[in-house]
């Protein structure tokens, strides 16, 4: 096993915590991969902000219907039991607490549960999409992310330095090194790569990691 999980492996790990029959929204981009790794015998129902519940996988190339897309504007397919609805009804599902899980990407996650994932600062064109709605809607908001930035700086921090997406909204973070819960405004370590010591992990984390109980090995298949 390499020294850190790939994006695909992080997505796999996150997928293991999704119950059969759960209603799930996957953020655009990297989180969309989670859908591929539903454990056998479990079937989640996927929601997309642009008005589909229960859509299926991507079509084959050349078979796209551009009126049948997800929030990332990628083509999807119909399944038996799909439903279409308009944007207000779609966000009623989100804001009204009807989704079981939302899995989102992150620039930074604070120990308070604050999330920053929509803006890297005042330069460029700001774009928020549905992220700010999703963090306040789903019963459980999880983040999947590399543990550190490309420059090696912690993405799990004491307080976010980037513009916030939401306050005290994230409850679990799946990283390339660990699975960490956020409880009472603190990071609580649940799983880590077996090759990594708690001290090693702490060194790459921007806020204190509590270790109140046993830490399981984070074991993910090669993918």
């Amino acid at each position, binding site marked *: 096993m390499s020294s850190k999980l790939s994006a695909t492996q992080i997505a796999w790990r996150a997928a293991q915590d999704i119950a059969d029959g759960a209603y799930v929204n996957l953020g655009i981009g990297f989180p969309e991969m989670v859908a591929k790794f539903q454990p056998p015998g479990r*079937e989640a129902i996927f929601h997309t902000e642009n008005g589909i519940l229960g859509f299926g996988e991507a079509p084959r190339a050349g078979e796209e219907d551009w009126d049948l897309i997800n929030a990332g504007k990628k083509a999807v397919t119909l399944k*038996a039991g799909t*439903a279409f609805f308009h944007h207000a009804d779609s966000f*009623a*599902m989100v804001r*009204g607490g*009807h989704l079981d899980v939302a899995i989102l990407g992150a620039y930074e996650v604070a120990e308070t549960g604050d999330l920053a994932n929509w803006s890297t600062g005042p330069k460029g064109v700001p774009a928020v999409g549905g992220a700010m709605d999703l963090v306040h809607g789903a019963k459980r908001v999880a983040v999947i992310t590399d543990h550190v930035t490309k420059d090696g700086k912690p993405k799990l921090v004491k307080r976010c330095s980037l513009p916030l997406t939401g306050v005290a909204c994230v409850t679990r973070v799946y990283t390339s090194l660990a699975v960490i819960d956020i409880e009472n405004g603190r990071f609580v370590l649940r799983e880590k790569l077996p090759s990594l010591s708690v001290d090693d992990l702490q060194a790459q984390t921007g806020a204190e990691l509590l270790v109140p109980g046993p830490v399981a090995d984070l074991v993910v298949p090669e993918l």
Partner: protein
Amino acid sequence: MDKTIPSLSEAVSGIPDGAVVMIGGFGGSGAPIELIHALIDRYISTGSPRNLTVVNNNAGNGHVGLAALIEQGMVRKLICSFPRSADPRVFTERYLAGEIELELVPQGTLAERIRAGGAGIPAFYTPTSYGTDLAKDKPVEEFDGRPYVRELWLKADFALIKAHKGDRLGNLVFNKAARNFNPLMATAAAVTIAQVTEIVEPGAIDAEAVVTPGIFVQGVVEVANPAQEEDLNRAGAAYPEKVA
């Protein structure tokens, strides 16, 4: 995933004493008579549930459905817009005797409060009821030079609704104007139980025509030949049936 429930008695088994229960329908159209009667059966045999707060547009008609629920003494409080009907005696007598509490809400405000409950909107402003007794003690604010009243969301522990067809994922369609409050209540309750005339396979309901997507529904029970309140009342029915 399979949300179908094999029997009416099982469908209503989880409703506790003191629950807030939304009941669909506008008068008799869209009223889940059989679910209500199953709740009465449970109450008669177990003494529970009682002290219910019921949300419905009306207050029952005759001695069946919601009127029968009230007649059993199971309802502590009613939230509705129009507690009148062809035969409103059951509610009227209890109300005038002080045995049931009434929260009267304008019909559009009632619908919007339920929608807000389902949509995660805790409060909104409406022109409705401004300057009337029903706006008493509610915050008022001007927008674009007109006064509006602030109203709060309405949520429930359970919703009992009636649909036409449903699948095991909980997708529902309704019959004509029997739609009324049913899709809204489905969104605003922690647990929504739908009685449907026919359970169909997923996909049998056109994805474009689904009115209530399954995410809003926790249980589906088939009642193949549902009674219509108007027909029961024309026949002088009562529930439970009067024993001579």
